């Protein structure tokens, strides 16, 4: 397995995306080389099956190439923009196919969250504080949905909680998170 311990500099990725918007295929190849291991890991985490994740990775980079002109320099981070495209692509696929998420044996291998030592995707200010204020059930539901792409039904099944409770925890959790993060942004 090829590992990179630091993320590529954001400014470099943003410039590569700009060149992709100008149909520079060499820049696209460089962008792919620098980011595909990160995007692939995220897709594996969501889709759990290597063959499906490989197919999805192709679609993600086709979308990135075609939408590069929509990336706005200076608004949002380039890697976060690409990861969001990957998440939506995987979620679309899972919801459309109503995929039964049976993992490969490699799931343990890909679930390693310890390897990125430097940087990582930027979190909103005080995110850790705000997420820490949520109760365990709510935090678990939000994480299963966002990180693993689980549906309400799957979360209810996995956590052995009633579907209604899961929906309610998610709804209230999102609201609480929004309020906490907004409050933290207010000037004191």
């Amino acid at each position, binding site marked *: 397995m090829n590992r990179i311990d630091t993320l590529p500099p954001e400014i470099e990725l943003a410039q590569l995306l700009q060149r992709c918007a100008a149909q520079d*295929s060499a820049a696209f190849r460089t962008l792919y080389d620098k980011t*595909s291991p990160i995007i692939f*890991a995220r897709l594996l985490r969501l889709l759990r099956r290597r063959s499906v994740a490989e197919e999805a990775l*192709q679609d993600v980079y*086709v979308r990135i190439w075609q939408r590069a*002109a*929509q990336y706005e320099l200076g608004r949002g981070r380039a890697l976060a923009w690409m990861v969001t495209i990957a998440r939506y692509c995987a979620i679309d696929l899972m919801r459309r196919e109503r995929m039964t998420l049976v993992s490969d044996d490699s799931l343990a291998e890909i679930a390693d*969250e310890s390897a990125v030592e430097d940087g990582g*995707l930027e979190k909103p200010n005080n995110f850790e504080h705000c997420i820490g204020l949520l109760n365990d059930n709510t935090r678990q539901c939000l994480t299963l949905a966002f990180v693993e792409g689980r549906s309400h039904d799957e979360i209810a099944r996995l956590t052995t909680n009633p579907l209604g409770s899961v929906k309610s925890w998610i709804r209230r959790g999102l609201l609480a998170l929004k309020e906490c993060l907004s409050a933290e942004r207010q000037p004191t």
Partner: protein
Amino acid sequence: MKSANRELLDRLAAEYVLGTLRYRARRRFERWLLSPQVGALVKAWEERLAGLEPQLAPVAPPAAVWHGIEEKLELRRMQRRPAARWLAIAASLAFFVMAGVLLTWQPGVVPVPTLERTAESSLQTDPQTIYWHVQVLGDNQELDLHVQNVHDLPPGKSHELWALPEGGAPVSLGLLPHTGDHHRVLNAAQRAALAGSKQIAVSLEREGGSPTGTPTEVLFAAPLSRA
């Protein structure tokens, strides 16, 4: 926007970003992304929930993935294109030199200046399905349409391009081609609508265009990037 609607939209935006909307609800919600207000709600939730992104160990994909991307986007053909492009440029130059010589022989005939590109947009749904690149020339006077990849149009149907002026009704910019490069001169109403638009949209219509003058089924919209 009424406060109750705004709350509902905000809740849907949150669950759209979180990923818990069912497939049909997700597709329906994506149509509302045409609205700048809904787009802003989604963007705000993307920023809020970014903190949940896990930091995973990178995993190198197999080489076959890149080859598949190259094939889908026909990148190899693109790499060969510059030579052909230079030939085309050389041929165009030769034509304009000849045209220039001819024009100088006719007093009173002034060559039409080439309009500069002032805005552009990429319109797409799924990468395999539809993709146009639209360039606006001059003061919203003309359009250059480049078809990248269009398949799967139902029989008897057309794609139509729309300007979405802020605070006004959509205005048709004509049908979209399915092959090749096209040039289009806009009329005064189209120019005015385009001047007030931050987005353009594509709709699915019966063959020949919208029967009502308004979009029948909006498929997607894209921002117009002004130069």
